[in-house]
């Protein structure tokens, strides 16, 4: 039992931030102390009260002020005439890109990389801490090393042991890496399509997510998404992989068909056979599919012949009816907008 009242730990208790032993002690104490139970209710009430504080929208004027201030701080020399200042202001205002993007292109020929473990190699140099590595260099880890790559201001990538990645471009339009072999874990928090990872079997396009990507030197690999979405693209072939799903990538063929990791064994075997052209597997895929497997079936629509497409569509429609306003014929014609709309609606069943 606690000798003193745990009043300073009640918020941590409610937030699940206490170690198990301490949490158990607090709970035991609460069972016998009415004063602390009352205090707990007060803390809980305080938390509830905050729900009435709405998030406020930052006024547009703030950005205008930032643009103006940043322009004068970053572009002019210490002593400058009024004419030069006005000319600089007009120049900036005349450019379509925002000041933030201009700033982010000034010094974007290098990446910030740090060794997390061991001594990763960048180019021909061994890293021992945090360093700036020029674009174009390869970053490699051995069995006992790992590295972290800062992706602009939108997130980071961890390079796993026995991996190599090439640091391509990094600027306002996006940040690109090329995964040669091994694996990365990416954690990106930004609007979509700002972070790209190229592999021989396709490019992983971040759509606001966290994921793991592995590939061998031939480009065959696997993508596993734990948060958000990732798009895999290769020569016009695209696979969209949401959280909880995985997708294989094949050298010379691009992205495979994604599946949810909790799909049934029979379904996954049939899908594996389909992807490796073994036997008549489409019937088994359709027979074993659950509602959630419409993720896989949706991708199959554009990967099968027209005759099989009708069967895939019909099975999908029994699992998740076509939304109002969408036409069967348009979907079977692989109309882009129709397919996109159906996928957005299907996401509510995944």
């Amino acid at each position, binding site marked *: 039992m606690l000798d003193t009242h745990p009043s300073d730990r009640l918020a941590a208790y409610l937030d699940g931030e206490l170690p198990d032993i301490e949490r158990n002690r607090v709970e035991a104490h609460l069972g016998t102390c009415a004063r602390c139970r009352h205090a707990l209710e007060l803390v809980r009430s305080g938390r509830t009260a905050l729900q009435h504080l709405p998030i406020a929208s930052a006024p547009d004027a703030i950005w205008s002020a930032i643009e103006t201030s940043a322009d004068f701080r970053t572009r002019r020399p210490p002593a400058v005439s009024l004419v030069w200042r006005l000319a600089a202001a007009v120049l900036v205002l005349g450019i379509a890109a925002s000041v933030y993007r201009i700033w982010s292109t000034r010094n974007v020929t290098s990446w910030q990389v740090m060794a997390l473990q061991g001594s990763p190699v960048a180019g021909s140099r061994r890293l021992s801490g945090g360093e700036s590595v020029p674009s174009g260099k390869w970053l490699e880890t051995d069995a006992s090393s790992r590295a972290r790559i800062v992706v602009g201001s939108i997130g980071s990538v961890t390079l796993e042991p026995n991996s190599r990645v090439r640091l391509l471009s990094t600027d306002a339009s996006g940040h690109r890496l090329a995964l040669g072999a091994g694996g990365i874990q990416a954690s990106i928090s930004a*609007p979509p399509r700002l972070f790209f990872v190229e592999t021989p079997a396709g490019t992983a396009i971040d759509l606001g997510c966290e994921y793991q990507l592995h590939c061998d030197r031939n480009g065959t690999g696997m993508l596993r998404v734990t*948060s*958000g979405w990732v798009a895999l693209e290769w020569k016009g072939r695209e696979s969209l992989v949401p959280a909880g799903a995985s997708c294989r990538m094949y050298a010379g063929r691009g992205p495979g068909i994604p599946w949810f990791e909790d799909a049934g064994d029979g379904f996954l075997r049939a899908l594996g056979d389909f992807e490796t052209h073994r036997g008549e597997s489409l019937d088994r895929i359709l027979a074993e599919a659950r509602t959630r497997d419409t993720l896989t079936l949706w991708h199959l629509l554009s990967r099968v012949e027209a005759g099989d497409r009708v069967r895939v569509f019909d099975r999908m429609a029994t699992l998740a009816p076509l939304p109002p306003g969408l036409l069967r014929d348009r979907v079977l014609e692989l109309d882009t907008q129709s397919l996109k709309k159906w996928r957005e609606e299907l996401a*509510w069943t995944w």
Partner: protein
Amino acid sequence: MSKFILCLICLGIASAEDLVIQFASPVAAQSYQFKKSAFVFRTLGCPSDVKPEVSATAEGLVDGQRQSVSLKVTAVQASAGNVFAIFREWSNQGVWIVSVKAHCGGKSAGVLVATDAQGIVRESSTVLNHPATEKEIENSLRSGKKPRGPAD
């Protein structure tokens, strides 16, 4: 006459669309800002000129003790329709279920959403045509399936 009455009844049924709460993983919101939410939900069946009133609580059973946490419900502005996000505000200990309630134009609906480390657990969740009662919450907590194991 009976056919006339039948038609009236059919029209009545056709026009009185039930209020339904549909829930899904965060990707359904189509908005990267909500990727960290526990799940998202939307209301269907609300007249277009009426805003639904929604609320949510996390109902838990921790070491045999019932706990209840009021949750912040955030509107997803980027999505069409009435779409909302719930972020995790409950403990990792014990068994929890989220009770979502919606009211609109005199109609009500509810849903009990089970989640684990990998996201929503549909098999353990229940869609209702009314806000969940305490009994339904208790039954759900005491009979819910065990959470899936940690992701490898």
